[in-house]
């Protein structure tokens, strides 16, 4: 019999970490106890997006959206809402500024400005149940392509749609397929690049966890289009849930005949194998990834030849990103014109961003291309935390750059971000507030990329390390003005002389912060001061003798006994011993501890 309520419990990694599995089993118990099992359907879905508010849960048909649910809430929730029809107000979503209760999920600004295409099934269907995917027109695109389109027609449709690679490069997906198809060779391959490595980015993970079949379907269509019978998904081993759901999905797809021999009785054979990566950032670079699949050390090779002509095992290979594959079925079903109806002329469609940093609603958002960064941060993200001022938005991870607050009205598209010295990248978006030190941020990224450099070419291996050392020097108050010129000079050399994308883009965080926030570097060098008080070596703590009443609280709390002074006498901090943890600053009730 049909159920009266569908209760969707988020099974994204963030919600699982905050115990959504326990919540789900408690729900099942409680519903059983009240004899409601026949009326209520409990579904575990992929990531719903607002991870900050997890564990989250949606109850249909009314779309009532619950946040921060805990196991102990369940008995009350079941009794009040599921039995008596009164949604539990205290768990409903509240917007931070108005604290106004918005009952209907559709009214929440976080969802309002989003346009879910790739993520349309994420958080809505059970990713481990192929039937739910089929009910959402799953595998219809594959069936249509195989029975009603020639491979060339499928390619033309993707070219016509203007879909560009969502992994960051922004190259035309259809064109890549066309080149792979035309490249001579009996054996061809499809690779799905799921080696998502940018710190803070989790778009691909969410799609693989929430709707793995859409990626499988996209790969199979790609296989048909380029003439490949074999696909590999290269996914990080750090994504165990994505791996598990993908494995299950591949198995189900085989059982239903969507993978394997003679798919849709068209004579087309295609199957997918999973390959797990050990988490090296450089393996997201396509030639390094291919080497890793071949069982070799993950090191890039020079391009050309591009994988489209000479890729995996020397055969023509089309390698596309997870999100790119997630778009394919929608374009085949709805047509290229439909796809072009969102986004901008040169960047059609939508883009998934992982919104993080100093913003109220962190999580996963899908927006039409061309929406401004301000809309993403202020409307969808709910503005900066604690009412602070926004300083910049970092896009594109370690290969990207910072876009200062005055450019927030820039549309999010491949071209416009590039014009500002950043990149779209795979979709990481970190919001920085006025307390973020831009020199320190650049140092963070350089530390990451210099660690992740594979080491085969000198500009990247030595150059990045040297740039990192200069940044350490500046943030510890030993910098000289000439260091800035050195940074720029080295950055340009590394960009020009590195073999692969890692080295070519790694200096970007330094260049873009130097360009937009040069005065912050100069303050660090000339005044030996960090304006945001982030660089520990440049901070001094001192006790104001006029304000200190000698309560001894600071001395008691100091973990290294750096504060001396008797009761009712002015205390003194010994800067030799001080580790600058800031504890005294936090505990002093009289504002006597000063930090500058």
């Amino acid at each position, binding site marked *: 019999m*049909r159920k009266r309520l569908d209760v969707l419990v988020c099974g994204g990694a963030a919600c699982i970490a905050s115990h959504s599995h326990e919540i789900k089993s408690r729900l099942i118990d409680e519903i059983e106890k009240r004899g409601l099992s026949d009326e209520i359907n409990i579904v575990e879905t992929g990531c719903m997006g607002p991870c900050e508010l997890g564990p989250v849960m949606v109850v*249909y*048909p009314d779309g009532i959206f619950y946040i921060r649910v805990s196991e102990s809430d369940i008995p009350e929730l079941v009794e009040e809402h599921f039995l008596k029809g*009164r949604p539990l107000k205290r768990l409903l979503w509240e917007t931070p500024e108005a604290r106004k209760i918005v009952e209907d999920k559709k009214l929440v600004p976080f969802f309002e400005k989003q346009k879910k295409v790739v993520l349309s099934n994420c958080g809505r269907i059970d990713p481990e149940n192929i039937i739910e995917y089929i009910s959402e*027109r799953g595998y219809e695109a594959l069936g249509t392509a195989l029975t009603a389109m020639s491979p060339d027609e499928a390619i033309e449709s993707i070219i016509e749609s203007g879909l560009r690679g969502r992994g960051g490069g922004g190259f035309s997906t259809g064109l890549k397929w066309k080149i792979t198809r035309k490249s001579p060779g009996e054996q061809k391959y499809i690779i799905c690049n799921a080696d998502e490595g940018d710190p803070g980015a989790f778009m691909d993970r969410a799609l693989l966890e929430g709707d793995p079949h859409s990626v499988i379907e996209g790969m199979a269509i790609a296989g048909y289009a380029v003439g490949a019978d074999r696909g590999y998904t290269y996914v990080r081993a750090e994504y165990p849930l994505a791996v598990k759901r993908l494995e299950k999905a591949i198995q189900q797809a085989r059982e239903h005949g969507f993978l394997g021999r003679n798919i849709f*009785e068209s004579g087309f054979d295609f199957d997918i194998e999973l390959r797990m990566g050990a988490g090296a950032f450089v393996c997201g670079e396509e030639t390094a990834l291919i080497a890793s699949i071949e069982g070799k050390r993950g090191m890039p090779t020079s391009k050309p030849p591009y994988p489209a002509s000479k890729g995996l095992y020397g055969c023509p290979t089309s390698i596309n990103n997870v999100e790119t594959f997630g778009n394919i079925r929608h374009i085949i079903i709805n047509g290229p014109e439909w796809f072009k109806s969102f986004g901008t002329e040169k960047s059609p469609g939508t883009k998934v961003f992982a919104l993080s940093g100093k913003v109220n609603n962190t999580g996963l958002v899908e927006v039409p291309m061309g929406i401004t960064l301000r809309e993403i941060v202020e409307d969808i993200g709910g503005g900066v935390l604690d009412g602070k001022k926004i300083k910049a938005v970092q896009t594109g991870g370690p290969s990207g750059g910072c876009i200062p607050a005055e450019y927030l009205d820039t549309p999010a598209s491949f071209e416009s971000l590039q014009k500002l010295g950043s990149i779209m990248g795979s979709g990481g978006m970190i919001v920085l507030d006025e307390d973020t030190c831009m020199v320190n941020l650049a140092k963070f990224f350089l530390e990451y990329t210099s660690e992740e450099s594979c080491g085969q070419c000198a500009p990247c291996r030595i150059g990045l390390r040297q740039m990192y050392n200069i940044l350490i020097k500046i943030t510890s108050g030993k910098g000289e003005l000439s260091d800035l010129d050195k940074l720029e000079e080295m950055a340009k050399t590394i960009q020009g002389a590195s073999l692969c994308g890692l080295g070519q883009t790694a200096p970007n965080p330094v260049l873009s912060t130097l360009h937009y926030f040069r005065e912050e570097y100069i303050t660090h060098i000339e005044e030996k001061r960090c304006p945001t008080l982030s660089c520990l070596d440049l901070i001094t703590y001192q006790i104001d003798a006029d304000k200190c009443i000698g309560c001894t609280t600071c001395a008691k709390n100091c973990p290294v006994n750096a504060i001396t002074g008797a009761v009712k006498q002015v205390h003194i901090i010994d800067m030799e011993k001080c580790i600058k943890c800031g504890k005294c600053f936090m505990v002093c009730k009289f504002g006597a501890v000063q930090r500058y």
Partner: protein
Amino acid sequence: MKLEDLKKIREKHQKDLILREGDARIRIIVGMGTSGIAAGARETLNAFLEEIDKRGLVDVIVTQAGERGLSSHEPVVTVCEKNKPKIVYGKVTMEIAKKIIAEHIVNGNPVSSHVLEINQ
């Protein structure tokens, strides 16, 4: 597997997801406050679900709400149809529920004997 087989699977299971659309032609809201439940609202609700399932109606959803204050008329049921006045029914037993489905939902003729209120 042929394309037609795929469509068959979809048609068979599509109704399982209908609740998540949140956009049905008709919503039947059963009052499930304490007095509603005491008067048999649960049985009424199940009767609606059973009848809808039996007739394979895909554009009708059954949901629930709290008390309307009409205790003496419980179970109280509201039928909301797009672009039409809301109709509130009182004393909806399992039999009346089946009648509402047959006469009102399917044929468009409200069961006048049990109408309490018509909201424009």
